[in-house]
C-alpha cells in the first residue's frame, strides 16, 4: 500500500555536478519499498509547477530507516527540489512495479544477471544491487554502467563497495570503454546467456531491447513516461506493449511499470 508522506530531509548533497542525492528518514517507506519503485514528489507549494515529479528510490537502509533518491536537475521541478535544505518533502509512494529481484526459475544457474545503467538511469539500479546482494545473488551479477564522461558516472564506486564487478563505458572515453554501454552488454551476451535489468534513456533501452531479442535473452527495463496521477487513474503514462497474444496495446508505466519485461515493450 502506498501512502501520502511528509518525508523529513535528513541529508542532501551534490553527488556529481548537476546530480543530487537527498536522504529521508522514513522507516515505513524503507520497509515497503521494492527496487524500481518510485516516489511521486510535489515540487513546490504553489500551482506552478503543478504536477508531481516521479523519482525512483535510489537506496534503502532498512536498519536505519533511511531512504535516498538521486536526481538530475533538468527543469523547474527538480530545480525546486535542489533548493530544499531541510524540512519535509511531500511524496506519494512507494509506487509502481519494480524489478523482479529473483530471476525467473527457468533461468539456468550459470546465466549471468546483467545490470545495465545509462546516465541518471543508474539511480534506481543501486537499490536493485542492494537487493540482489541481500538475496545472495551478487556473485552472478555483472554491472555495466554508461555515462557521458567519467565525472557523470553515478554509482560505480558504490556498486564496487557492495562487492560487484563493474565495467564502465563513457561517450568520450574518459573512463572505461569509449562508446555505448550496449557494446559492453553485447560482449557479455555473446559468450553466454543471461538475464538483463536495465534503466536509462529511451534510445539506449530501445537498442538494448533489440539486442536482447536478437540474442534471445530475457530481461526487464524501466521506462520513463510523463505522469500525472502516478496511480493508474489518469491514463497518461502509456507505454506501448505487445500482449501475450501478440496484440499491441497500452500499459501504464505508473502501475503496470515502470519496469516491463524487455520483450513486451514496443519501441
Amino acid at each position: 500500500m502506498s501512502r501520502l508522506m511528509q518525508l523529513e530531509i535528513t541529508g542532501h548533497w551534490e553527488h556529481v555536478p548537476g546530480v543530487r542525492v537527498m536522504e529521508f528518514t522514513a522507516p515505513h517507506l524503507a520497509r515497503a519499498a521494492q527496487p524500481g519503485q518510485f516516489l511521486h514528489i510535489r515540487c513546490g507549494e504553489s500551482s506552478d509547477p503543478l504536477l508531481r515529479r516521479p523519482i525512483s528510490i535510489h537506496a534503502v537502509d532498512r536498519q536505519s530507516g533511511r531512504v535516498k533518491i538521486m536526481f538530475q536537475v533538468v527543469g523547474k521541478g527538480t530545480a525546486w527540489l535542489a533548493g530544499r535544505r531541510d524540512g519535509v518533502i511531500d511524496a506519494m509512494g512507494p509506487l509502481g512495479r519494480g524489478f523482479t529481484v529473483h530471476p525467473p526459475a527457468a533461468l539456468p544457474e550459470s546465466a549471468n544477471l546483467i545490470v545495465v545503467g545509462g546516465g541518471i538511469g543508474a539511480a534506481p539500479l543501486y537499490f536493485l544491487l542492494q537487493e540482489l546482494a541481500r538475496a545472495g545473488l551478487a556473485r552472478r551479477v555483472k554491472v555495466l554502467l554508461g555515462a557521458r564522461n567519467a565525472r557523470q558516472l553515478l554509482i560505480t564506486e558504490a556498486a564496487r563497495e557492495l562487492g560487484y564487478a563493474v565495467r564502465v563505458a563513457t561517450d568520450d572515453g574518459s573512463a572505461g570503454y569509449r562508446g555505448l554501454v550496449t557494446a559492453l552488454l553485447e560482449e557479455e551476451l555473446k559468450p553466454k546467456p543471461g538475464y538483463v535489468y536495465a534503466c536509462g534513456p529511451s534510445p539506449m533501452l530501445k537498442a538494448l531491447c533489440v539486442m536482447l531479442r536478437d540474442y534471445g535473452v530475457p530481461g526487464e527495463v524501466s521506462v520513463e513516461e510523463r505522469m500525472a496521477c502516478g496511480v493508474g487513474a489518469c491514463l497518461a503514462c502509456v507505454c506501448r506493449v505487445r500482449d501475450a497474444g501478440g496484440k499491441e496495446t497500452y500499459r501504464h508505466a505508473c502501475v503496470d511499470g515502470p519496469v516491463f519485461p524487455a520483450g513486451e515493450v514496443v519501441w
Partner: protein
Amino acid sequence: MNTAVNLGGIAMKNPVTTASGTFGFGLEYQDYVDLQRLGAITVKGTTLKPRLGNPPPRIVETPSGMLNAIGLQNPGVEQVAEEIMPRLAGLGVPVIVNIAGDTLEDYARVARRLDGVPGVAGLEVNISCPNVKKGGIQFGSDPRTAAEVTRAVKGSTGLPVIIKLSPNVTDMVAMAEAVAEAGADALSMINTLLGMAIDVDRRRPVLGNVTGGLSGPAVRPVAVRAVWQVYRAVALPILGMGGIMTARDALEFILAGATAVAVGTGNFVNPRATLDVVEGIEQYMQNHGFTDINELVGLAQRDGGSC
C-alpha cells in the same frame, strides 16, 4: 450541519465528487481516500466499445495547468457494467458514469446498457471531449445537436442525466438552455479548454494528438464565470469543476451557483484533495455560521452582480 445536496436526482451526502477521467474507475486512489466519505464518485468516460486512446505523449504540464489528450481510453461499457460496477456498488456511494460516443445511437446504447446496473446513480454525458473527433461531430458546440444527444440519452435511461458542457463555445448559456429544454436533470461544467503546447527544441507539438484539453487552476476563472452565467439563466442544478484544489476554490463555485463540485486535476497534485475539500467546506460553514450548504449555493449572486 447539513452538507447533503441533491444533484438533479442524485442524492449526495456532501457536494464533492471527482471529475471524470481524473479518478480512474474509482478504486485507483483508495490507498489515499476513504471513498465512502465522498459525495459521489464520477468515473472515466465510457464508450460503447473499448478504446485504446491516443498515442503518447498524452499530457504536458503548462503554467498552473496541464494539457491532456488521453483520447477516451476505456474498457467499454460492457466491462464497466459487468466487472467494474460490481466492485463499486458495495461502497454505498453514488457512482456517476461519464459516457461518450461518436453518434447519437452510441450515446443511447451506452445509456441503455447502464440503466439498472447496481450502483450507477446517474450519467454524466460528455458532449464535449476536445480530444476525440470522429466524423467532425462536435455535439458540444451546437445547441441543437446538444439537445439531440440529451433527448437520446434521456430516452434510454431512467437515471438522472447530467449534461457536461464545453467552455469552447461562444455562448454557454445558449447550450445550457438547449439541453435544459431537452430534459437534462443537471449540468456539469466545465470540460477542458482546447489548447496546445509546442516543443521549441524539437519544433513540433508536444502531444501525440497535437491539441489537448487544458485543466487545472489555470482555468478556474473561466469555470467560475461559466457557473455564474449559467446559474442566472437556467434553473437546473450545476456540478461545477475546473481547477479546484482546495475548499476555498470549491466555495467559489458554490457561491457562484454550483450545487456540487468535482475535483479533477487537483487529485494529481494532492491525492487527498477531495476529502480536504469536504472538510474545508464544513470548516467554512462552521466559521461563518451556515447550517445548510444549500444556503451557500449562488449566494454571491444575491447582491447585484451585473454580468
